[in-house]
């Protein structure tokens, strides 16, 4: 599996740390209800198909990426810098 880093290009999966579903882009407010925090921390859509994930290019440029990946085929569909995704407001 190879992951496309917007800064470094396509790199071996071993250079990246996997954080999981990209829930961090939509963190609940500190005073949000317990259910919102439970959803954020624990509950997952866990789809068989395309999913948006956070990967950290820890053995490369250090960027946090949002990668869209198919969990059935391991196909990489898109990737972008997490900072850019966050600024674009998604």
């Amino acid at each position, binding site marked *: *599996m190879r992951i496309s880093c917007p800064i470094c290009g396509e790199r*071996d*999966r*071993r250079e990246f740390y*996997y*954080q*999981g*579903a990209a829930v961090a882009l939509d963190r609940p407010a500190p005073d949000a209800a*317990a*259910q919102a925090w*439970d*959803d954020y*921390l*624990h*509950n*997952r*859509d*866990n*789809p*068989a198909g395309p*999913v948006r*994930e956070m990967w950290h290019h820890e053995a490369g440029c250090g960027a946090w990426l949002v990668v869209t*990946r198919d*969990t*059935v*085929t*391991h196909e990489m569909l898109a990737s972008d810098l997490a900072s850019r995704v966050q600024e674009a407001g998604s």
Partner: protein
Amino acid sequence: MRFSGLRVLKEGLTGNKGWQPHWRDPEPKPAYDMIIIGGGGHGLATAYYLAREHGLTNVAVLEKGYIGGGNVGRNTTIVRANYFLPGNSEFYSHSLRLWEGLEQELNYNVMHSQRGLINLFHSDGQRDAFARRGNAMINQGDDAELLDRDGVRRHLPYLDFDNARFPIYGGLYHPRGGTARHDAVAWGYARGADQRGVDLIQNCEVTGIDIEQGRVTGVQTTRGAIRAKKVGIVVAGRSGQVAAMAGMRLPIESHILQAFVTEGLKPCIDHVVSFGMGHFYISQSDKGGLVFGGDLDFYASYAQRGNMPMMEHVMEAGMTLMPMIGKARVLRSWGGIMDMTPDGSPVIDKAPVEGLYLNCGWCYGGFKAVPGSGYSFAHLMATDRPHAPAAGFRLDRFQTGRGLMDEEGTGSQHNLH
């Protein structure tokens, strides 16, 4: 049809013409008292114990593929009760006791082999942790023996004891641990449930869960609608998709775990050996193949196959521990879909929908749990009360933070187990 040595002899002398199919292949009825979604080990065991312990036989097991075609036929077959935390300890202890009577109970040869399991340690700190774990196991009523270096050498003379990075200091020996024939466990429970009147319906995929006013009323399937008062979801890696049919999101992320088998060899590895520091474990199957594996690939996946970096890592760890296996050729490898929870422990609980029950989150340790899980889940579905040894496997422990069972001590977070 009962199996016996005499029967095998008779069939052998008469051309093996008298064997019957082990279970029926019934058409689904329009309604049952209970439906179990998922004909894997846990689902079949649940159906068996519903019939055996609670007299509930108007039950259907719905399996989208064939019996024994999922994770129950795709694991590394290890059976053990060496857990540390309260909640896990009593559950796996109960499960191992069920294993020990399983063949007589089912009249089925599941080839349960208590060949002993040894967890290796490589530092003073690890020795202390393993001594503590062994004491917890003994307090639970199970068996554990702390081996020093020479003790390990007596059992496993072929290891590289003087490895520069991970010299072997000793091991925690669990003599009642071992392996079983995974397919036979599914077949034995399937046969036992079928004999008691449970309908095992294969090639029947659930496509929807019918809920009226907060109560389950049945399921939609590729073979038509089936009504039921109670429905149990026991679908391992697919838990997220099936729960979504009932409008639920679960604390589960499905990951890939790889396993490997070599060509058949003469007996050389007599135990189950686990090398935790290298994320490697191995046993030898009765056919002679070395069966081994490592850790998750660590990304969500339904592909049932993994990637090369983890293969390389597992092979390296195996060569580090026991260089003698280097000449064995790997015949095949595969991946299983693991229903990973944040704390690495499972869920056996009622769902928020009335009449709906959840049995999921077995992570990469579901096989040894098959008897205990089926027994406890049947108890929950039949009586609506948790079975004591599984009472800790609550769904709400993540939200409340009470009763988290993080056996590895790494934190209750999705990417840490």
